[in-house]
């Protein structure tokens, strides 16, 4: 019974709890049971809040028993990526620097989810400060892919992806700066949504690259992603880059989810069929195209000529912003401080605390960012990247706005291949950066993107396991309602999302 509860989507579970057929306490216990039986092998969680979660679950049960109105997520166990601040427990960013850091406040998304009745059972592993695509850059834990434990779950939201894929929770929050929600979602066979920049408040998300970061839901169904977004989205006075109510428009993402988009036009970029793609990625994309054609959609071949420049622009802009954002970790205000010896002074305090506190990938990105912003290189690198960013966005504007040929969304791969082996790309930063080739452009352009399960690479695992493969849909800014409907059309027609990894149970 406990297993059956843990297998439910958030939407189904929420209905059972509201109808008093399942208690929130039972739901939270089912989630905690799954975590205690599986997480020793998966390593998705850095912290578990057993007592607090059970207590809050019982309080939701009392409210429902007393006939009170409860929120849209009342009683449902969820997880939070550990770079999102919670006023309880720690917020470590999987970094030695913040290993014992306790935030005095909760992020706006945490507050909104808890106000809607969600029960936070724990915080999940990530690449340190969300910098990475495999979770191998975590200083505090190792997460494996539930489909094949020799492989990476992707990253940086790898802990959240693994927790959802292994059915420990039905919803986990991720953050996505260059693909950190959509890439791990693809590698673990789940749904991952990066909303439009400004759709969800970033208040309380530890900043990596502020013009690219967005928080989003990772779930097992499109419906759950819509439900979570409905709770999380909206203008926030505490985030000056959150979009105002006029831009936000209707936030009822679940309302028309089941209604297919009539006259759907999807653009498939010529550039998506790269020679670098694993055959299963091309097969999944072909499969998705066939599904949409069968559903009456028109598939339009489009050009995103600057897609190939995405990674180069991203690896200038993101490190530049990171070098500035991470300057706050100075050994004085947060986290850890190096022990100074006689004769060492303030400069050494900064430089040694940062050398001891940050792992290699974070150091590399801070260095890269400092380099591209430094005097004499600014125009050649940073300014060039900002101009490239405009050109990359222009490709999407052209696809969505083309007179007579406009498409409702772009359909393309989420990743170049299925999950790769842990350690395979650990010594070659550039190889790992190229994992994000299909995802970074949505961040650069500020557009919403969603990864959905779209098939398997049969027998591609180390012991012959099948590995999941996703496809990605990218839509115009603030068009999540339609983007989710398009994703739901594929999901309803295929059922790929119902497959569970062999490790579950």
């Amino acid at each position, binding site marked *: 019974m406990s297993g059956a509860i843990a297998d439910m989507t958030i939407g189904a579970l929420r209905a059972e709890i509201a109808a008093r057929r399942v208690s929130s306490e039972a739901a939270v216990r089912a989630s905690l049971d799954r975590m205690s039986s599986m997480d020793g092998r998966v390593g998705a969680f850095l912290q578990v809040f057993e007592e607090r979660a059970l207590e809050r679950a019982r309080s939701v049960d009392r409210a429902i028993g007393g006939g009170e109105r409860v929120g849209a997520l009342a009683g449902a166990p969820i997880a939070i990526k550990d770079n999102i601040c919670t006023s309880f427990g720690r917020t470590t960013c999987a970094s030695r620097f913040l290993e014992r850091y*306790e935030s*005095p*406040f909760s992020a*706006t998304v945490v507050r909104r989810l808890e106000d809607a009745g969600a029960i936070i059972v724990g915080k999940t592993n990530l690449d340190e400060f969300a910098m990475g695509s495999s979770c191998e850059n975590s200083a505090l834990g190792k997460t494996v892919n539930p489909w094949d434990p020799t492989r990476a779950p992707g990253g940086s939201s790898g802990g959240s992806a693994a927790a959802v894929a292994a059915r420990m929770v039905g919803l986990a929050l991720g953050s996505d700066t260059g693909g950190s929600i959509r890439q791990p979602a693809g590698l673990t066979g789940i749904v991952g949504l990066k909303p439009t*920049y*400004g759709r969800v408040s970033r208040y309380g998300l530890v900043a990596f690259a*502020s*013009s690219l970061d967005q928080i989003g839901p990772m779930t097992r169904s499109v419906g759950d992603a819509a439900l979570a977004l409905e709770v999380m989205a909206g203008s926030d*006075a*505490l985030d000056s*880059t959150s*979009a105002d109510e006029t831009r936000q428009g209707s936030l009822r993402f679940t309302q028309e989810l089941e209604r297919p988009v009539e006259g759907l036009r999807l653009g498939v970029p010529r550039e998506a069929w790269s020679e670098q793609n694993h055959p299963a990625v091309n097969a999944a994309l072909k499969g998705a195209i066939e599904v949409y054609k069968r559903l009456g959609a028109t598939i339009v071949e489009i050009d995103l000529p*600057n897609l*190939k*420049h995405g990674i*180069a622009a991203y*690896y*200038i802009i993101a490190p530049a912003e990171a*070098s500035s954002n991470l*300057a706050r970790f100075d*050994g*004085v*205000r*947060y986290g*850890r*401080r190096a022990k*100074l010896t006689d004769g*060492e*002074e*303030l*400069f*050494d*305090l*900064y*430089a*040694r605390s*940062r*050398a001891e506190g940050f792992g*290699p990938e974070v*150091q590399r990105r*801070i*260095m*890269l960012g*400092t*380099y591209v912003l*430094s005097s004499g290189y600014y125009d050649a*690198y940073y300014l*060039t990247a*900002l*101009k*490239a*960013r*405009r*050109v990359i*966005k222009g490709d999407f504007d052209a696809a969505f706005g083309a007179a007579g040929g406009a498409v409702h969304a772009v359909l393309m791969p989420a990743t170049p291949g299925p999950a790769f082996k842990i350690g395979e790309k650990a010594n070659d*930063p*550039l190889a790992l*950066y190229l994992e994000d080739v299909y995802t970074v452009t949505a961040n650069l352009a*500020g*557009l919403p993107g969603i990864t959905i399960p779209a098939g398997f690479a049969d027998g591609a695992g180390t012991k012959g396991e099948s590995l999941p493969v996703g496809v990605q849909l990218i839509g115009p800014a603030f068009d999540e309602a339609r983007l989710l409907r398009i994703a739901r059309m594929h999901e309803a027609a295929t059922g790929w999302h119902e497959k569970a990894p062999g490790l579950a149970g």
Partner: protein
Amino acid sequence: MSELSADAVRKVARLARLALTDEQVTRYAGQMGGVLGYIERLKELDLEGVEPMTGPVDARNRMDEDVASGERGEVSTRLGPTDVTRMAPEGGDRLAPFISVPKVLGEESGS
């Protein structure tokens, strides 16, 4: 560019306030050189006359009333002195509202 010189890496590390070992300097020189070499491909683009794009939203200044947070009906972001000192490695309740730092005045600070 395939490798950054060790001196260039040391200079950047100093700007970034990172005390690196010689071994790290050598390793990062190769890795950063590889990434910078890849980034060079942006030079293929014709970016003549293109406006730089700093972010996805057109930045506009949003003027707020000059009142303390929490007094306009939103969530207060005010932190008390101990909220701040507790986040600091050499702070905590013991020194509140102060944080201990090495001497910063009266001598060359090294930067």
